[in-house]
């Protein structure tokens, strides 16, 4: 018995499952809303060139700074970079050296951070897809919550069983069964087993549940 104290009534299906369903749905929504709408493009290992080009195009369109990345292709621009002002101020050269070193380091760490951020995003997406799976796994059960509140309901009722002998429209060797399952319209399943087969009802239920789940997924 789930309940630790006899003074409490056993749980109803509704009490137990409906909140779970709502919560899983909310959790998944909270994860998905932003994860799929992030404007930031992580640099990808597969197409580094393409990604870099996309960034440069974006920078050119935005404020033209992307063009400065092409300075190596012009002699005079390269010359600017190698201008030596140390005769005027030796400290300036030292400072420039320090700047270049820290800039390279910062670029390296920025790239590393990008990679880690991408892995982190992947972990978040994995969690989100597990929540989606949880939702998928759970929703058909939790859907039953609303259906199990009345007294004395029949959740699974076999209404008709026919074979080729009683109904010529049923192919030979098969058995057609019509069942009512939960709140659905009558579900018709055709199984290869005969009524006398010990597996008969298991096969019927499996097929009926499959149809029920499929219908609710749709």
């Amino acid at each position, binding site marked *: 018995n*789930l*309940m630790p104290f006899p003074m409490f*009534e056993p*749980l109803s*299906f509704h009490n137990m499952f*409906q*909140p*779970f369903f*709502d*919560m*899983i749905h909310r*959790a998944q929504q*909270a*994860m998905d809303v932003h*994860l799929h709408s*992030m404007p*930031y493009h992580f640099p990808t290992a597969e197409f580094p060139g393409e990604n870099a*080009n996309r960034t*440069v*195009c974006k920078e*050119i369109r935005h404020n*033209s*700074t992307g*063009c*400065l990345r*092409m300075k190596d292709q*012009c*002699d*005079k*621009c390269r010359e*600017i970079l190698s*201008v030596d002002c140390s005769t005027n101020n030796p400290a*300036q050269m030292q*400072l420039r050296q*320090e*700047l270049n070193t*820290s*800039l390279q380091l*910062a670029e390296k*760490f*920025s790239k590393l951070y*990008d990679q*880690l*951020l991408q892995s*982190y995003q992947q*972990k*978040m997406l994995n*969690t989100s897809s*597990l929540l989606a799976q949880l939702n998928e*796994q*759970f929703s058909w*059960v939790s859907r039953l919550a609303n259906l*199990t509140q009345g007294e004395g309901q029949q*959740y*699974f*009722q076999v209404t008709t*069983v026919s074979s080729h002998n*009683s109904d010529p429209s049923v192919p030979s060797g098969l058995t057609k069964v019509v069942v009512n*399952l939960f709140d659905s319209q009558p579900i018709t399943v055709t199984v290869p087993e005969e009524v006398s087969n010990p597996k008969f*009802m298991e096969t019927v239920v499996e097929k009926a549940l499959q149809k029920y789940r499929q219908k609710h997924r749709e």
Partner: protein
Amino acid sequence: DKAISDKELQEMSTEGNKYINKEIKNALKEVKQIKTLIEETNEERKTLLGTLEEAKKKKEDALSETRDSEAKLKASEGLCNETMTALWEECKPCLKQTCMKFYARVCRSGSGLVGQQLEEFLNQSSPFYFWINGDRIDSLLENDRQQSHVMDVMQDSFARASSIMDELFQDRFFSRGPQDTFFYSPFGPSQRRSLFFNPKSRFAR
């Protein structure tokens, strides 16, 4: 092929109900397994978050040093101004042409406005900015801003999802072993709300 009697149909229905109960119990077991997977992924996420924080610290230290050096260098701006300006005037047309060619070939969108904007940008830029790799510094700072934004968005989404998941997984349904689900008869007769599982009490907390 004798007709199936009402009694037999009823027996079949009872038998079918047993299988349905079994299926529901299996679904519940699987739900618990997914919950375990979610927890494992979350542990991996936490470890990764630690690594991210370390990397962030290193990145920020390097950025801060870059900005310091940049500020100090700016204080000495003007020392080689003449040389730089002369070279800059010759560098600009080549840079513009190279950039426009690249844009037309790679970016594949209207280049008219971009050309005008680039002209203005080059005329306003100083060779000193160029000399100290100002574009790389700006690009780095912009990246830093975007990375912080992405991280904030992810953390915010996760915090919201996580508080719901914590609430959900604290429930005694999840804290029991999978075998414990077998006690449960999904079609129990009671309709009364339990105090333990009353969703209102959870939301209030």
